[in-house]
């Protein structure tokens, strides 16, 4: 039987509502779950969540648009967030940023054409003593130097090949 993506999302969200409950406080955990599985929260998903929690879709959009880690537009499987706060800045985040742009062929705020990588800035990720630091999805990399980036990105590509449909941390700490 052919199951459309919308139907699949529908049953996924209904199952989620069973475990998180249908109170307003379930909203952000549900959004985080959708975000991590689908790398985005589509308009359709926002509408469904609003129906399930019995709130206006605008309320859901208001929340999604507020937080850095929730987004409506499609993003890559690996979201690279380079810390731009002052401590990482002083340890050379500009050179890391330049090399990321070179290696990925995209600028900050963009996603590669193959849908693998999105490049973004992060505000202080709490690794100030080991800068420059970046996050790839939930995993944190510290003391990053421009020459190490190629290997890190390659590791992502390999993980992607092994678990094509599954989102994983590439470097559990």
């Amino acid at each position: 039987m052919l199951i459309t993506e919308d139907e699949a999302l529908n049953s996924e969200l209904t199952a989620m509502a069973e475990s998180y409950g249908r109170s307003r406080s379930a909203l952000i955990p549900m959004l985080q779950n959708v975000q991590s599985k689908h790398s985005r929260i589509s308009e359709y998903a926002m509408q469904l969540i609003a129906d399930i929690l019995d709130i206006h879709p605008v309320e859901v959009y208001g929340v999604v648009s507020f937080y850095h880690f929730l987004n409506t537009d499609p993003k890559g499987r690996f979201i690279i967030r380079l810390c731009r706060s002052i401590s990482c800045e002083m340890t050379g985040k500009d050179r890391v940023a330049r090399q990321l742009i070179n290696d990925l062929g995209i600028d900050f705020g963009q996603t590669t054409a193959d849908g693998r990588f999105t490049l973004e800035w992060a505000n202080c990720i709490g690794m100030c003593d080991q800068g420059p630091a970046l996050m790839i999805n939930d995993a944190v990399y510290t003391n990053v130097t421009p020459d190490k980036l190629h290997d890190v990105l390659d590791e992502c590509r390999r993980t992607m090949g092994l678990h094509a449909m599954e989102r994983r941390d590439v470097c559990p700490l």
Partner: protein
Amino acid sequence: MPVMSASHKGLVTFKQAAADVGLKAAAVKSGTEIIDEITKSGLKGRAGAGFPTGFKWKLASATKGEDINKFVVCNADEGEPGTFKDRVILNECADLVFEGMTIAARAIGAKDGIVFLRGEYAFLRRRLEETLARRRVKNLLGKSVLGVKNFDFDVEIKMGSGAYICGEETALIETLEGHRGEPRNRPPFPVDIGYFKHGTLVNNVETLCWAAIIMSRGAAWFQQAGTSDSAGYKILSVSGDCSAPGVYEFPMGVTIAELLKEVGGEGAKAVQVGGASGVCVPAREFDRRITFEDAATGGSIIVFGPQRDMLHVAENFLEFFVDESCGQCTPCRLGNSKLLEAVRMLKDGVCSMSYLNEVVSLGETMQLAAKCGLGQSSPNAFLSIVNNFKDEIMGRVSGAGA
């Protein structure tokens, strides 16, 4: 000032603490006795604002009615640039954090605890869940903690989604309830009307740890160190131009010069105390002390070497605030944009002194008029850099550095 140990590096006291001694002592005490001990110790909130912890607990315990649910929330949303002590504490001393939460619950009569962990620290979550599970098995959490009747308490972990403002306690409660992280008006304070209108005690990770230590070592031990208004020790996160960045434990009242010597940051031109919302202390004032009454910090110490351009530092901090302002109130939302614009004008060498004075007065207005504590402190770094480094920032020739 007593010498506490040969080394200040790392979590000296927290790591020495024997497991759950504080909790065992608290379990046989009444709520009032616990609160009295914490009050006597003079412990103040370790996230920077420095509100007396004992008093906060007293207010939370006074919320009426046995059947009213109360919550203990551990604020693990440290987002201040240059702060990472909570990450290290949660990673290395998670048991102590939960012990502190359980003691707080005993003191105010709460049954539920929430750790609000910032999204950036998702990698810590698995270990924390394992620690919680272990504590449940040992009956340090759950029904009748340590076999004490009517002492039920459990903790769950909730994740943040990347928003600096959620470290503000009312914004934190908003996000827990599933809303945008916009601070509420105060009063009412969370201790009266907090998470879903229940009385809610929000404490920083480090504050809860010190509360546990105080219950095991006693208020008098804590009082030995520090100054009259800032008792005890403080965990500092040191980064920037120094040879040994990392987490340090110092008695309150340590001077910036002493601190720099310990971390290998001698010769610094300035030190940012308190992160982006803190103040920039120039070298001539390095005899100032790290205390709530002088240079207050939630833990962030950033060292700037002689080669650093202070205007560049101010620009970085203001970019941070422009990005992280929740946008709810005008002084913070627009004020920070105007300050950033002025810094860029200074960088380009096209800012007149009279315009700079206008902008400084705008910054002072923000300190008064912004809605929450974070908004009120957002112009601090800019104002102290303008104030202390005027000769460096004025009359720049476009394109050239300092």
